[in-house]
């Protein structure tokens, strides 16, 4: 910051300028918004900036992430951002970490050391994690995000405003297995089929278990039987990847025989447009590579077959060196396979055809991103942070960018926390306990004896114990790696709100905590006067999943989720 900034002083006051200069800021994500925020925080005069990002730099970042250039591709974002920012401006003081923000080393204690946090992330899981840490440590969070021309910046002041999880966010798209395997009705269904089913069965890691919900009903018995057969045949084909007529067999099976098999299930097509088995035209793998480079144009059937044949040859030749290949949108061989196979399937089912360029966007879950929207959102975010430090609490605004004829964005006063929220609507405390402290001790000595619970369930990123599940009772905190983590205590009598306990290592001790009653519970009490008469609320038990806890898979901040993860009977596009 310049030694003067007379304008800033007059506008925000001397005190605010001082607070800005002495603030310690955490910035999560060094992508498009992150680069902009670094610049803005430095110029605004923020004293110390800590920057966390696990991701490395990719060519497609360069249209907006101004701290990176060609020479930095594949290098860590956080470290390059720190170094380049310093080249542009010697006043930069950044501590950079190439790490996952959800790593346990970024503990509650660590989060507590910051005055402000900025989220510049593009995945919900990491955003939820930072949100939870900020709420737990009472640290203001400015959550920024963009997608193409749209964007938003949410101001989160724990205890005073809504948090990220106070409102529901749209669930990721998911498709029933039957839609993908038997009855696709949109081009995306063909793409998911080509990527998550066909490609992974032929080239991917062997499936650990059946992808199907094995519970049969009278309705789906026939379909499941056929799908199982189809899958086994594909397994057989995989054994013969190197045989000279593999491609012919593959095409014959997946685009003709399997389709005929589907057609034989008359009932399935009574109310749907029936598929038409492929009539295979002349094609040659020789043209494949040339055609594959024409990625803006929709291929004909023969062209798709040429690309498919060529990509199969390329993939098979790689299998000598690589045991298995996973789909990656930036791996041309895998993308060509998925683009060609999905279009062939779409033409069989009479669905719209897509160029390889468009298939990549869908299969790779690519979100368009431009520098201008990032600049706009980052500007708004830092302005709100400065207003917060200037004590202008009543003027704080959350902003949504959506262009209409007479405004660029809409802004609103942040709402009060949602009492039902599983992040802001819970009680929190900390405790210390030694490594050999068991779950049973936690339940009996702490929760029942000290806190007066009768029946409880305990969760971390999974279920640890409940009245019917005692496998972990004798396991220790160390065995379950629960130090520096939250556990959630659910009152099985359904009277109190959930309690989040943050456990660190030390002699047994728990901070005093008041655990309020559930909102509906306290209402019932006041109405009925005699608590003994109150009817237990019908609210169902909350699970780890709806407690908004991070799942077991770790993820990198600043990284777009590209996987189609398959769970039970649904395929999620996250």
């Amino acid at each position, binding site marked *: 910051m310049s030694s003067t900034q007379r304008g800033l002083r007059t506008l925000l006051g001397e005190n605010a300028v001082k607070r800005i200069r002495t603030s310690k800021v955490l910035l999560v994500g060094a992508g498009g918004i992150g680069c902009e925020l670094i610049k803005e925080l430095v110029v605004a005069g923020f004293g110390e900036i800590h920057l966390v990002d696990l991701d490395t730099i990719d060519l497609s970042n360069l249209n907006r992430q101004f701290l990176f250039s060609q020479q930095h591709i594949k290098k860590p974002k956080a470290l390059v951002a720190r170094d380049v920012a310093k080249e542009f401006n010697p006043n930069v003081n950044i501590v950079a970490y190439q790490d996952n923000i959800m790593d346990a080393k970024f503990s509650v204690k660590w989060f507590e050391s910051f005055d402000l946090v900025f989220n510049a992330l593009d995945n919900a899981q990491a955003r939820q994690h930072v949100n939870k840490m900020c709420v737990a440590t009472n640290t203001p969070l400015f959550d920024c995000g963009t997608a193409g021309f749209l964007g938003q910046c949410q101001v989160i002041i724990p205890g005073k405003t809504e948090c990220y999880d106070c409102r529901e966010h749209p669930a990721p798209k998911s498709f029933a297995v039957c839609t993908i395997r038997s009855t696709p009705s949109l081009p995306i269904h063909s793409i998911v089929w080509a990527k998550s089913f066909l490609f992974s069965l032929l080239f991917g890691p062997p499936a650990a278990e059946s992808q199907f919900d094995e519970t049969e009903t009278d309705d789906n018995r026939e379909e499941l039987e056929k799908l199982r057969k189809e899958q086994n045949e594909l397994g057989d084909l995989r054994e013969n990847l190197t045989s000279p007529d593999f491609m012919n067999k593959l095409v014959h099976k997946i685009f003709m025989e399997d389709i005929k098999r589907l057609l034989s299930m008359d009932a399935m097509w009574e109310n749907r447009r029936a598929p038409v088995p492929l009539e295979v035209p002349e094609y040659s793998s020789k043209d494949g590579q040339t055609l594959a480079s024409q990625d803006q144009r929709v291929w004909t059937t023969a062209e798709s077959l040429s690309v498919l044949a060529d990509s199969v040859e390329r993939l098979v030749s790689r299998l000598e060196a690589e045991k298995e290949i996973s789909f990656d949108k930036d791996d041309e061989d895998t993308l060509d396979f998925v683009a060609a196979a999905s279009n062939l399937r779409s033409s069989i089912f009479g669905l719209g055809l897509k160029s390889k360029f468009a298939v990549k966007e869908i299969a790779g879950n690519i979100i368009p991103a431009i*520098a201008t929207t990032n600049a*706009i959102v980052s500007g708004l975010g830092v*302005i709100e942070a400065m207003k917060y430090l200037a004590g202008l609490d009543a003027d704080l605004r959350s902003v949504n960018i959506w262009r209409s004829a007479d405004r660029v964005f809409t802004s609103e006063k942040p709402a009060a926390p949602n009492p039902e929220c599983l992040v802001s609507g819970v009680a929190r405390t900390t405790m210390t306990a030694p490594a050999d402290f068991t779950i049973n001790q936690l339940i009996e000595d702490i929760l029942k004896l000290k806190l007066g619970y009768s029946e409880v369930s305990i969760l971390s990123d999974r279920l640890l114990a409940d009245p019917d599940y005692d496998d972990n009772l004798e396991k220790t905190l160390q065995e379950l790696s629960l130090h520096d983590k939250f556990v959630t205590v659910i009152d099985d009598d359904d009277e109190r709100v959930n309690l989040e306990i943050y456990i660190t290592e030390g002699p047994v001790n728990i901070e005093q905590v008041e655990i309020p009653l559930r909102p509906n519970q306290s209402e019932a009490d006041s109405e009925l006067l005699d608590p003994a008469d109150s009817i237990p609320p019908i609210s169902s038990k909350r699970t780890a999943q709806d407690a908004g806890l991070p799942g077991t898979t770790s993820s990198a901040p600043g990284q777009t989720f590209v996987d189609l993860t398959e769970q039970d009977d649904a395929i999620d596009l996250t």
Partner: protein
Amino acid sequence: MNKYDRQIRLWSEAGQGSLKSARHLVLGVTAATTEFVKNMVLAGIGHVTIVDGNSVTEADRSASFFMHHDVDGSNRAQVIAQYIQSLNDEAEVVGAAENPNHYIQTPELLASYDIIITTRLADDILMQLWKNVCKTSVLIQIDSYGCVGQVRSFFLWHTIVDSHPESRVELYLHNLWSEIESYSDSIDLEALENHDHEHIAFVVLLIKALQEWKRRHHNGPPSTLPEKKEFKAIIKAFERTYDQENVSEAVRNAWRVSVPKVPEGLSKLFEIQEGCNLREFGLQLTFFSLVRALKQFVAKYDRLPLSGDLPDMKSDTAGYNRIVEIYRTKAKQDAEQFARVYLNLCQLEGLEPASQSEIEHFCKNCRHIRALRGVPPNEDKRLNLRVHEDSEFKSIFSAICGANEYLYRNHLTTWYGDQSAAEALRDYSAHYADQVGLVYDSSAEELHSVSAFLGGIAAQEATKFTLHQYTPFMHTLVYDAIKQATHVFLNGEIFN
């Protein structure tokens, strides 16, 4: 893959090509114009010249990332050009150590730029510049003062071929052609088994309902509410089974038979170019000659060219594929016929025709093209002060214009504690003086984040102007960071 992949997904490779061939001129370095240049260079603009005669000052340092003690005393434009050039070697960034006034008064220096960016120019100078460039360029002024600022854009005409409509689906049922009509006639609804009846595409049901409608009425498609009700009843009468899905689809799409042959805005554009010498449209010559050709096409075929896009519909596969084929074939024929009409026109008028792909692109989007007619800076100001507009933002607007005037007249960049500035601002704002304090308190310094916001907005507008895609706002956007609110003073005319 290329490094513009994430934006090509928004505006296509053709759009990226337009950016690549665009040339911008930036008159005056502030944090806001610096941010503007940074955004355009990252996006892949072809060329940008930055002009400023001053050296880096203390005030610059407090608001611009690229200016710090190490570059003290260097020319602002050259410092910025050097740093920003390093962000993208495919763009050409030139820094000229000259007074912007020199450019403003030398029309030859201004001629080759598509967009000219100004900052803190007094209104009469802006008007002088406008007179020199309005035939060849769009003018955008960005002003950032402390917590407030504005972005204003000036142009004679701006035209948009791809406005990114939600859908290009158009069934053209008001004017059927023989293939679709004879396909529909080949289906005898009454003779069909229930199962087949349920799988007739709704397009066919609409055509048959329209035939029945024409037997009953002789005055065009249903337009009044009772007429529309009657038409829906005709469709509903096809129903054989309860809640028959294709019949419901037809009812939901019944409005499509009443879609005007030519949308209102397009009719106005037809009128505007009528009888004009097309060359009067200057930069928009190609667009308006395509519009004239489109009008001739409509005169000849009594409808706009088909886009060929169809909605999804419940149907058996053979029927669906047949309809898709009929529409695609017709769209292709229409595109060819349109190109013929257009090329004829070009020959007749002695015009250089647009490329094949431009013609196709226009034809595909013809129902959704747009044109904006802007107003010059002096007009802009007069209209902006209309009494009914939001008075708080009007006051900020007036104070900013006053500040521009004061700085420009006195050759200043800031006014720390200068009372005459306060008086000048108040004089200028006359009845709208409530917000003068906000501008005065900034001492004409910029807050970087406010400038980043304004530079982002201005670059997004410049991108839209360059792409001829999406619709820029008309005309002046005023921003208040403390209230976190914007107001757009609309001005000019929009045809869409």
